């Protein structure tokens, strides 16, 4: 019996290594040296999927953070990477909690951002926001993070009211060989990353990775430690398979476990999850391509104070892109999403959900047509998304965008869009204090009508600027039917009682001062006014419209000092948050990298160097200065 068991384990391993040995192995450097020019010309170096359109052609406030910039900055998690992006609002609430948004409404429950990683949605339908401490990947394997500030619902999805964050990891062909990193010091008790990528058979690639990160507590405002320590362990894989000349299959997945501390409880909160994605892309001969994607995502957490949640999501999407003529491109697609959760109330008297189990479905259809006029000087993009979901019924989210190329160096753009924030479990089903405050099944989507205007220009060979202005009108915002602190009638319900306006300006300038010195500066002005509609007694809503800084300034220096040394400095100044009682603060983060040799890299990163500790968000803790060291190396 035992030998049968052993054989059944050994056999697949043997056949796997046999598969590795077969075929023309081109990935290893030793074999590349032996290949002729003719052989090299036959290696597929880029997958068949479509190429991104140039940044200057997009009629939206877009910024792309390259993977190389993430590496040079030395950041260790997704939220800190988003901080590098001009216009993004990122506030660290405590050791493991971040409030992240674009264009306002920031909170640790911020709910107006669509966040995707390789097409998989990272926000939870519990409150339409992201638990940033549960979402991770090997940061070195990120190819880029594309961020659109402003609505992107027509193409991107249900939650893209104020912005879209699209995290794209590298194809497995770009992560060949091994990589290991270890680090510690400052806020990090220790961390380690490990990844190995290789080739299976002929021109099919895979990678596997694992990481673990242990972070210590920050500092309580009342003094002492804040008991918000955090650990997260994650492993995952990605395989890219070439099924045919123009057909590509990608299979990827992750598994993670973690715990975070909370001063209110003895032990620690726990989170865990598993997900898998299968994506098939087919390029057709006639300048068209189709992509199918199936995602399964399971997550579980227990905060040990008021509730625990288990959730499963199945998401299927198909998208077809076709060039109808040299000046017209059409994208159509649709999707189906199934969502099932189970919530356990730990202290039902404080927080409960009714019902505790809920399953829901949504399906959508989207279309976008892009037409060029006048020798491609003017580009019009018309798009709309139609959706049906079990929370708010039918939704339509249209957008009109136009870009006009003034000359070869500059362009201006304008956009008008409507987007909605679909209701979630919290809006409709929560019960607080035994039912004193209740969610409402009649709670409907929050809406925005956004107008945007932009200009980008290459002012000289080394200097470029990007300006975006926006004016947003919000309606049906979430509030309460009554003044929660002194209600005239109970229960108080969650209701669409708010309306508001925001406006702002975002300016980004890039300067390539020398071949080896890059500078980037960005400034953002923002103002938001929310009020309760006539008839509502909600006073909280107007008290919470200044959780976003009016002014925010970011500066960045990226300098290759020599072929072995480089320096990355990111500084920011963030204005006060009146409603959160948080003062303005500035912070300087520095990363120094020393490339010891071709394999070995040593870096030292310091954060908040100018300041012992500071508060970044209301009800938060003081974020301390921290310095840590990292050693990383690559191997074949």
């Amino acid at each position, binding site marked *: 019996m035992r030998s049968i068991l052993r054989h059944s384990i050994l056999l697949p391993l043997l056949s796997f290594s046999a598969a590795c040995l077969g075929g023309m192995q081109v990935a290893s450097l030793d074999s590349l040296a032996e290949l002729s020019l003719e052989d090299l010309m036959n290696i597929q170096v880029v997958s068949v999927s479509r190429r991104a359109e140039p940044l200057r052609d997009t009629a939206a406030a877009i910024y792309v953070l390259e993977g190389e910039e993430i590496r040079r900055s030395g950041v260790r998690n997704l939220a800190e990477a988003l901080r590098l992006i001009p216009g993004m609002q990122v506030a660290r609430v405590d050791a493991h909690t971040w409030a992240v948004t674009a264009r306002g409404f920031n909170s640790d429950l911020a709910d107006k951002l669509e966040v995707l990683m390789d097409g998989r949605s990272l926000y939870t339908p519990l409150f339409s926001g992201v638990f940033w401490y549960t979402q991770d990947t090997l940061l070195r394997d990120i190819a880029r993070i594309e961020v659109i500030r402003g609505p992107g619902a027509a193409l991107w999805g249900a939650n893209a009211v104020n912005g879209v964050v699209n995290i794209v990891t590298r194809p497995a062909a770009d992560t060949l060989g091994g990589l290991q990193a270890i680090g510690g010091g400052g806020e990090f008790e220790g961390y380690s990353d490990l990844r190995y990528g290789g080739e299976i058979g002929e021109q099919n690639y895979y990678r596997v990775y694992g990481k673990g990160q242990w972070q210590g507590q920050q500092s309580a405002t009342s003094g002492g430690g804040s008991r918000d320590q955090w650990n997260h362990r994650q492993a995952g894989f990605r395989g890219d398979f070439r099924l045919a000349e123009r057909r590509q299959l990608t299979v990827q997945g992750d598994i993670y476990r973690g715990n975070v501390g909370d001063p209110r409880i003895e032990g620690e909160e726990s989170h865990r999850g598993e997900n898998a994605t299968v994506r098939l892309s087919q390029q057709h001969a006639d300048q068209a391509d189709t992509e199918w994607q199936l995602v399964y995502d399971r997550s579980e957490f227990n905060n040990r104070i008021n509730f625990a949640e288990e959730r499963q999501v199945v998401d299927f999407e198909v998208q077809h892109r076709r060039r109808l003529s040299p000046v017209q491109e059409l994208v159509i697609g649709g999707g189906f999403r199934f969502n099932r959760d189970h919530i356990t109330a730990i202290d039902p008297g404080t927080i409960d959900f009714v019902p505790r189990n809920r399953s829901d479905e949504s399906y959508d259809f989207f279309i976008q047509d892009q037409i060029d006029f006048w020798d491609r000087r003017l580009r019009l993009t018309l798009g709309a998304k139609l959706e049906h979901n079990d929370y708010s019924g039918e939704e339509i989210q249209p957008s009109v965008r136009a870009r006009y190329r003034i000359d070869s160096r500059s362009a201006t753009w304008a956009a008008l869009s409507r987007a909605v924030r679909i209701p979630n479990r919290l809006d409709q089903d929560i019960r607080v204090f035994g039912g004193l405050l209740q969610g409402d099944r009649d709670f409907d989507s929050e809406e925005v009508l956004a107008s945007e205007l932009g200009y980008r220009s290459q002012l000289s060979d080394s200097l470029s600027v990007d300006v975006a202005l926006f004016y947003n009108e919000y309606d049906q915002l979430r509030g309460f039917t009554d003044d929660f602190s002194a209600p005239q009638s109970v229960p108080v319900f969650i209701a669409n009682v708010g309306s508001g306006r925001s406006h702002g300006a975002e300016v980004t300038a890039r300067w390539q001062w020398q071949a080896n010195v890059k500078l980037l500066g960005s400034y953002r002005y923002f103002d938001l006014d929310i009020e309760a509609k006539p008839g509502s007694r909600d006073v909280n809503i107007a008290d919470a419209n200044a959780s976003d800084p009016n002014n925010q300034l970011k500066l960045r220096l990226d300098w290759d000092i020599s072929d072995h040394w480089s320096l990355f400095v990111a500084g920011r100044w963030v204005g006060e948050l009146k409603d959160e009682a948080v003062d303005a603060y500035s912070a300087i983060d520095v990363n120094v990298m020393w490339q010891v040799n071709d*394999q070995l890299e040593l870096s030292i990163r310091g954060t908040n160097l100018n300041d012992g500790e500071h508060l970044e968000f209301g009800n938060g803790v003081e974020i301390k200065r921290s310095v840590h060291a990292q050693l990383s190396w690559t191997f074949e």
Partner: protein
Amino acid sequence: MIHPVMAGRWFRPCVLLLLAVMFSHQVAAQGLEKRVKAAYIFNFTHFIDWSESAFETPSSPLQLCIAGDREVAVAVNSLIHNKKKNQRDLSNKLVLRPEDALDCHVLYIAVNGDKTLLRWLQALPGRHMLTIADGSSFVDDGGVVGFTIVDGKLRFDISQLNAQRAELQISSKLLSLARQVRRNPSSSEL
């Protein structure tokens, strides 16, 4: 407090592995496209002849330089190990500024943006230098070889005119494998 214990237990094998790695001498570039580019750059040297005046002494090495891409530089470094061209050693270096590249025989310029590329070209003497960059427009702007991607595969264009200006002898084999060969200034306008 379970964390320091767990971290400690984790770290001992890591440190051991680190020591093992530090004594190994393999090098690695991480991306396939970059590896293939490095292999092309190394391969080009087989099909191009530099005149003796391109070298300071008869024993001077053939210098392969990479601007702006460490991964390609690392891959080139491992490919040229123990290789020779006409009894000359091959050596390579990563350069950050045009003024560091004056002694290069091959220069791959991996920088973003046409404007930055043009500034590099303008700052270089160009003589005896095989200049390579990404994009087919590079050969029209004064470069010798431009990489281009066709159906997901890496190919290259050559400007024979710019090669002659740089006093490089390109073999007919290499010309025959190029996707396009620009022979005179007017052909680039076709």
